């Protein structure tokens, strides 16, 4: 499952999308919007066709590199409030070491190469600023 979506991420669906009887380990990473005295939400802008292409290629590279049985990546688009999930990455493998390593690597790559940008939405509208 490779998805960029405006709606809330359904964790159970993301985990179920990588379940297979030959996997013994699933690692799910959730990036959530952290509170900050100035911030009430993050707003995600996505170059959708390129993001989907890039996430799909990244998923294939991760499967090869770590020997995963399956992988899913779902990223939010638009407004995500404090406490909400911005990104979910699920990696399934025969053994847990590969699932942990792959999940951490994929998140690093998402932040490095996928065309998604976030803007902080301040509690006061005059304070909007871009966050890296």
């Amino acid at each position, binding site marked *: 499952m490779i998805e960029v979506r405006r709606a809330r991420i359904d964790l159970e669906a993301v985990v179920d999308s990588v379940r297979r009887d030959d996997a013994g380990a699933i690692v799910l990473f959730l*990036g959530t919007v*952290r509170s900050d005295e100035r911030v009430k939400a993050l707003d995600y*802008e996505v*170059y959708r*066709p*390129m993001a989907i292409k890039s996430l799909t290629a990244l998923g294939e590279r991760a499967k090869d590199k770590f020997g995963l049985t399956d992988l899913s990546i779902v990223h939010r688009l638009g407004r*995500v409030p404090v406490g909400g999930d*911005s990104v979910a990455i699920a990696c399934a493998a025969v053994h847990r070491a590969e699932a942990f390593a792959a999940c951490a690597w994929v998140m690093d790559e998402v932040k490095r*190469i996928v065309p998604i940008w976030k803007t902080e939405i301040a509690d006061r509208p005059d304070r909007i600023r*871009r966050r890296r």
Partner: protein
Amino acid sequence: MQIQVRLFATYREIVGSRGFTWSSRDGLSLRELVDGVVAKYPRLAGHRDTMLLAVNHDLAASDRILQDGDEVALLPPVSGGAG
């Protein structure tokens, strides 16, 4: 020929638009296109060092020769994920 130019995040705000069509002679390179866009919107100049370029949804080098109908995206440094 006609090139579709797409702009995101900071660049979209600087230019005040999500993109436009750029008309040019045949054989234009990606670098020449960016030179033209930056000349038209000088506030983009300070961003050239960190700008990533994509043609038809793939990252591309600046010596890439463009074709009629290509979609060129000017991408600020990405910042997906949370935190």
